[in-house]
C-alpha cells in the first residue's frame, strides 16, 4: 500500500502530500505520523498540502484530527500551501480547522514553527 513519506528535519517533521488523499491513505498517515512524533520526539509538524486539489469533509476532519493529535503529543502543527479552491471548500463544509496554524508556503511555515519553539502546543495564532 502506498504511504505518504514523513521526513525528519531536526526537531521538526515534514509531511508533503503529493497525491490526492483517499480515506485509507489519510488513516495510514495519521498512524504513521503519531508514531513518528513519538519515536523522533518531534516538537513541530509541517504539513504541506500545496499539491492537494480535492478535499472532502473526511479529509478535512483528518487534517484537524492530525493537528489535534500532534498537539496532544506536544508538537505544534502548521498546515501550509492550501489552495484557494480547497480553502473555500473547507469553509463551505464548515471546517474552519480551529487551532490549526496555517502559512502560505513551507518557508513561512518553518518560520512559524521555529517561532513557536519550545512553546509547542500553545494557542493558535489569532
Amino acid at each position: 500500500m502506498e504511504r505518504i513519506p514523513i521526513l525528519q528535519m531536526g526537531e521538526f517533521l515534514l509531511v508533503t502530500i503529493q497525491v490526492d488523499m483517499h480515506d485509507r491513505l489519510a488513516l495510514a498517515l495519521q498512524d504513521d505520523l503519531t508514531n513518528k512524533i513519538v519515536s523522533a520526539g518531534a516538537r513541530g509538524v509541517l504539513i504541506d498540502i500545496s499539491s492537494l486539489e480535492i478535499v472532502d469533509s473526511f479529509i478535512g476532519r483528518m487534517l484537524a484530527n492530525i493537528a489535534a493529535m500532534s498537539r496532544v503529543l506536544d508538537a505544534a502543527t502548521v498546515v501550509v500551501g492550501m489552495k484557494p479552491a480547497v480553502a473555500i471548500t473547507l469553509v463551505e463544509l464548515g471546517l474552519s480547522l480551529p487551532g490549526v496554524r496555517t502559512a502560505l508556503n513551507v518557508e513561512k511555515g518553518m518560520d512559524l514553527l521555529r517561532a513557536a519553539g519550545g512553546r509547542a502546543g500553545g494557542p493558535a495564532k489569532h
Partner: protein
Amino acid sequence: MSKIPQILREDEQQILAEWMRDMSSAEKRSDLINADDLRQQCDRFLRLLQQATQSGQLAEITGEPYALVRDFLSELSDSRARRGFTPTETAKFVFSLKKPVFARLRVRESGNADELFAAIQTTSELIDKLGLFTTEISQKSREAIISRHQQDMLELSTPVVKLWEGILALPLIGTLDSARTQVVMETLLQKVVDTGSAVAIIDITGVPTVDTLVAQHLMKTVTAARLMGADCIISGIRPQIAQTIVHLGVGLGDITTKATLADAFLVALERTGSSVRSSIAESNGKPRT
C-alpha cells in the same frame, strides 16, 4: 380541414401585395428600414409561414413545423431591436398581416359565415401567438444584456490591490450578495497565492449595509484566507454599521477590525515587520522604512 394553408399558398402574392400596400406608415418606419428590406422580410415571413401551415398545425407554434418561422422571427426581432424598433412595433408588424389574410378569407368564404368566422378566429390566434413570440424574444435578449452587465460589474467591482510587500487590500463597494462574495473570495484567495501576501485588508467603507448574511460572508472569506495562511483585517466600519452589527448580535469572532483603512494598514505593516516613520520629525530626514 381549414382553408388557411390553401389560401396562404395560392394567394401568397396577393396577400403580400396587399400587406405591403396597407401597412401604415407607423408600422413601416421607413426612417429605420428601407422598402426593399421590408419587402424582403415580409416575403420571407409569408413564405415560411405558408410552409409551416402546410403541416395542418395551426393552433400551436411551438412544434417542429414552426421551427423555421421561430428562427426567422428571433432574427427579425434581434435585427429590428438593433435598428431601433420598439418591441411593440415589431409585434405590430406581425399583427398587420391579419388584415390582408382576413381580406382573402372573406373573398374565399364569402357564402359561408360560420366557416369564415372559424377561419378568422384560427388565423387571428395564430398570428397573435407569432406576434407575442417576437415580444418574448426581445425581452429575452434584453435580459441577456442585463445579466451580462451584471457579470461585468461583478468583475469590475472586486479589485484586489497590493499596498505593500505582503499586504493586500480589497476595497468592497456595493451590496454583498452570495454570488458577489463568491467572486470576492476567489479573487482575494487567488491574489494571496499569486503575491504570497501574509495580510489582507478588507475595506467595507463602500458597503451600504451589513446584515447577518453579509457578516457571515465576510467571516467565510476571512476563514478561508486564514486556512491558506493569510491574516485578514476588516476596516472601514462606519459608526452606523458598528451599531447595526452589535444590535443584530452578529459576532465577527476574533477578526481584527479597524475603523479606517489607514489604521488597518499600520497593523498590517506591524505584522509584516515594517513600520512607518515621519521623515520630518527626524532631523536627518531618513526615508521611511
